[in-house]
C-alpha cells in the first residue's frame, strides 16, 4: 500500500505503525516541540510518552507508535500545538 509522508508517496505494509513507516524511510523525527522548537520522534514505543505525535489525515496529536496505517493515509510533521483542519 501507499501512504503520503509530508507530501511524498511512500510504500507501507499492512500492520505497520505510522512510526515504523516513518523510521523505515529514514525519518527519526516528525514533530517540533511547542516551546523549544526541538525535533522529536519515537521514544517509549508503546503509547505512554506522547513524544511521537504526528498529523494523520488532518488530525493532529496522533501517536505514531500506536496508529496502524491504512492505504492512502496522509501523514504530516506536527509543528507545536496544531488545530485540526477545517472540515475534518
Amino acid at each position, binding site marked *: 500500500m501507499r501512504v503520503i509522508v509530508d507530501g511524498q508517496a511512500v510504500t507501507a505494509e499492512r500492520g505497520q505503525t505510522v512510526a515504523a513507516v516513518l523510521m523505515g524511510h529514514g525519518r527519526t*523525527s516528525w514533530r517540533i516541540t511547542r516551546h523549544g522548537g526541538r525535533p522529536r520522534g*519515537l521514544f517509549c514505543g508503546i503509547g505512554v*510518552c506522547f513524544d511521537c505525535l504526528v498529523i494523520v489525515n488532518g488530525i493532529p496529536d*496522533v501517536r505514531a507508535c500506536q496508529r496502524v496505517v491504512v492505504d492512502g493515509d496522509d501523514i504530516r510533521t506536527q509543528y507545536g500545538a496544531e488545530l485540526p483542519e477545517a472540515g475534518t
Partner: protein
Amino acid sequence: MTVLVVGAGPAGIHAASSAAGVGADVVLVDSASRPGGQYHRQPSDAPRTGALAVVDHPRVKWMPETWVWAVERTDQGFRLHAQVGPADAPGRPCIALDGEALVLAMGAYDRVLPFPGWDLPGVYTAGAAQAMAKGQRVAVGRNVVVSGTGPFLLPVAESLLGVGARVRGVLEAGSPVRWALQPWLLRGSLGKIGELAHYAKVLSTGKVPYRTRSAVVAAHGADRVESVTVARLNHDWTVASGSEQQVEVDAVAVGYGFTPQLELAIALGCRIQRALDDSDVVVVGRDQATSVPGVFAAGEITAVAGADAAAAEGVLAGLSAAQSIGSSIVDKQVSLIRRKVLRKRDFARALAAVHPVRSGWQSWLVDTTLVCRCEEVSLSAVRSAVVERGAAGMRALKLLCRVGLGPCQGRICGRNVAELTGLPDIPKRPIASPIRLGDLASEPDGSGG
C-alpha cells in the same frame, strides 16, 4: 456473569483463559489490535498460536483496539468506559462494558533516567527498541548502544542484532555479579540461569561487549543522536572521573526497570504500595485479590518479574475472579499455581535487590537537561521552583514550573522528579487513555457490553 479483563499481555490472556476454562464468560480488552501485550509481540501477519489462541475461545469476547479510559463501580460490579477504533482517531465510538468481576493486567512501561541529550531523536526506551524490532521488524538504528539496568537489556540486544543492527555494547549500570555470588537469589527460577547462558552466547556471537558499572551519561548531536558519552560508574552511580569516552552511534536504547500502569487500579481505590524497586504496585493477596472486593490484579502491575510471572499470576487471577462470581474451581489446581506465583515473587524481590537504581544518576544532569520532556522543563527550572519559590509538595511544584503537566501526565518524569526533589510523586491520573474532548461529550450513560 462476566469477568472483565483489561490488558491482553501474558497476565491478561492467561486470566481470560483460566476464567473461561472454569465456565465464566470473559470480556478481554486491549488497546492493541493483537493479543500478547509487550511480551508476545509479533508481526501482524503471524498466526495466533499457544496462549494467544484464547481470543478464539467461545466464552471469550475479544475486543481489540479498545482503549479503556475510565472505570467505575456499579451496583452489580464494574463498568469500563472505552473507545473502540484506531489510535487517537476522533469520533471513535464510546462504549461501556459491564461485568461482575474485574481483572486488571495493564502491564508496565520502561523507566528512563534523564541525562543531557536524552531528548534528542535517536534516544529510545529499551522497550521501544524491542517493540520496533519484534513487532515491526525495524531497527531503531544501525549502530546502537544499549544502556540501563536489569536483565531486560539482554533480549533487547538480541532483538536488535536480529534486525541487523550493530550493537556497540550493553552497558549495565549495576553490578549483577551478585547473581553469581548469591545464586540462591535465583532459587526457584533455575530457568533463568539457562536464559543467562543463552544471552551470553548471543552477545559473544554478535561480538557485543557487555560492561557492568557503565552507562550512557550524555547524548550529543544537533537534531539527532550522533554520539554518546559512555562512562564507568562508581558504586553510587556517580561518574568515575576520567572514565568518560565518546562513542559514535546513531541510536541509544535505555531502560532502568519498569513503572507499572496503575491508573485504573488507583481510580478504583485499590491499595497501592511501594515495591523494593521503588515502583508503586497494586497490593494483592494470595489469590491475586486487590483490596477492592471483586477486583483482581496480575502481571507487572503487581510487581515487575517478567513474562512467566505475569502468566502465572494471570492464571490465578482468572480462577479467583471466576470463583468470586460463582464458578467452582479445583483446589489442587489452585495450590499448584499458587506455589509458582510465590516463586516468581521471590524472583521479583531478587531482581530488585540485584538491580537497584542508585541516586548518583542525578549528577549526570546539567542545568539545561530536560527533566519533563512534554513541557520541556529543565533541571534548573525544577530546582528554582523548589529552592527559590518554595514548592512544598508535588502539586505546587507542578503549578510553579509545569513539570509533569504535559500529555503523558507525568508518567515518564514522575518518579525522576520525586527523586530529584524529595517530594512524593502523585501517580493519580484521571484519564487512563487519552480521549478527545468532542468524544467525551458523546459518551453514552447507559450500559453496553
